[in-house]
């Protein structure tokens, strides 16, 4: 499904990502972990087209997408959420998801239609599945942090992706919100047959749902494999898990 080959990116001579390869198979739930500054978000930016890699390839469903713009990558079936919550704050919850549907279904240049009730049922169905149907009319910027994260997930789902990239989906959440969000993500992935690649700092979350884990450290992959293998890897224990007592 996703094949990242030896991508590199340096900012002012600092190698943020130095030759990372990664494979995610269809239907898999994969996680990237690593200490702060390990290059997780940069790697995401390289995969989604937000930042162009200095070298290496990104292949999505057999198609080379290296250097394509984010909106093209999005149209090819890759949806992304952000570490810092990224919604359209002064639009209502409904409008947020509806806009994503409009963009995905290529109605974005429709100047003659009426937007009012366009894709109303589909929008409400997505809001239902992320548990925000009752807040459809609320301005999204005033929602709680947890709700905004859920909404962001709804925006991502609206572009009907096969592959979901979630950057720290539980960042800044309370323990309860974290648990609920992870359950939600696991359920949506299962129901919609999605492939999931996510970064996370909460080890409990990672080991509870990921089938495959890649460990980044200083822009390089230091370990990769099933959770049990990664957990027992001496290098990982030294640089990462060992730091958390």
């Amino acid at each position, binding site marked *: 499904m996703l094949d990242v080959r030896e991508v590199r990116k340096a900012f002012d001579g600092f190698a943020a990502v130095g030759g990372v390869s990664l494979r995610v198979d269809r239907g898999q739930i994969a996680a990237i972990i690593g200490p702060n500054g390990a290059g997780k978000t940069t790697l995401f930016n390289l995969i989604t087209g937000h930042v162009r890699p200095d070298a290496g390839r990104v292949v999505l469903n057999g198609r080379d997408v290296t250097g394509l713009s*984010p*909106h093209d990558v*999005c149209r090819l079936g890759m949806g992304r959420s952000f570490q810092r919550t990224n919604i359209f*704050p002064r639009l209502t919850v409904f409008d947020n998801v509806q806009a*994503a549907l*409009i963009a995905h279904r290529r109605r*974005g240049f429709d100047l*003659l239609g009426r937007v*009012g009730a366009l894709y109303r049922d589909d929008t409400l169905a997505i809001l239902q599945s992320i548990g925000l149907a009752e807040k459809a009319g609320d301005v999204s910027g005033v929602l709680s942090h947890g709700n905004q994260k859920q909404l962001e997930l709804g925006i991502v789902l609206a*572009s009907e992706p096969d592959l979901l990239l979630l950057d720290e989906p539980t960042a800044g959440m309370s323990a309860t919100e974290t648990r609920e969000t992870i359950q939600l993500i696991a359920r949506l992935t299962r129901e919609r047959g999605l492939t999931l690649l996510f970064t996370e700092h909460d080890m409990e979350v990672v080991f509870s749902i990921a089938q495959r884990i890649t460990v980044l450290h200083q822009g390089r992959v230091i370990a990769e494999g099933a959770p049990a293998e990664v957990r027992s890897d001496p290098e990982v224990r030294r640089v990462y898990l060992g730091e958390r007592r």
Partner: protein
Amino acid sequence: MTDRRRLPWGVLAVVAALAVPAVGSRFYTFLATDVAILALFATSLNLLLGYTGLVSFGHAAYFGVGAYTTGLLMKQLAVPFLLALPAAGVLAAVFALVFGFFCVRLTKIYFAMLTLAFAQIVWAICFKWNDVTGGEQGMPDIPYPDLAWMERLPWAGSLRTSDHYYLVVVVIVALALWILRRIVESPFGRILTTIRENPERAEFIGVNVRRHELVAFVLAGAFAGLAGGLFGIFNRGVFPDFVYWAKSSEVLIMTILGGMGHFYGPAVGALVLLVLNQQITSYTEYWPFVLGTILIVLLFVFPGGIVGALAVGARRLRRSARA
């Protein structure tokens, strides 16, 4: 999910505007023409400012291009109004397409500075190209369109030519505002608001941000051009200061004063600014001082502009009426 029981404000405003020559003096028709045209100009800017989140410091360029186009066609080539006015919109759109192509490649203040730079280039050309634009002296004596047929209308027969022209302006502006309203309520308009809110996120839902910005820029330019075409005739002449940066800032002030968060905000801003200007300049020569004070108060107390403040007030009233 729109509320159908609301009053048709738009229709009422048009009817009221059409009645001005019948009830008011010549002076009020003059002022109302000015207001109607600048309301269209400001609303066209708001497609960029309020809906797409793009600050243009050079919107007068397209107003000016429209004014010169219609003026030249009608005065030098005796082209009828029915062709000369649409030509203003088309040529302004072409200029907006060329300039916009470069502007949307930049963001924020860099975008704003580039719009200003292009506008000043247009101004310099209008100011110096004596053979075509009349240079510094401008282009006086632009004829009125042939509106003799209106004398046969029962209720408009006794009016002056300037009143007839005013009625035409009201109808055209109303039509243009209706089209703009449809645009902001279209799927395209919704996508523009996502760009205003969060351009980076918009890219990741599959929006080609630059191309949407360019289309918005061209549309805004076209309607500004129409406003310019109407204004040149109303003003009986076209002059380089139509394109000068001061004109761009004037329309920016109208838009912010009226409230860029509402479709009719800029139109209200145009009305208030022009009426205040008339009233206050008859008392004091320090109009800019008064305007500055008003703006400072507004920005701190009612950042949503006049219409924003009214909307908040109306909501409070309704809530207290219910309680």
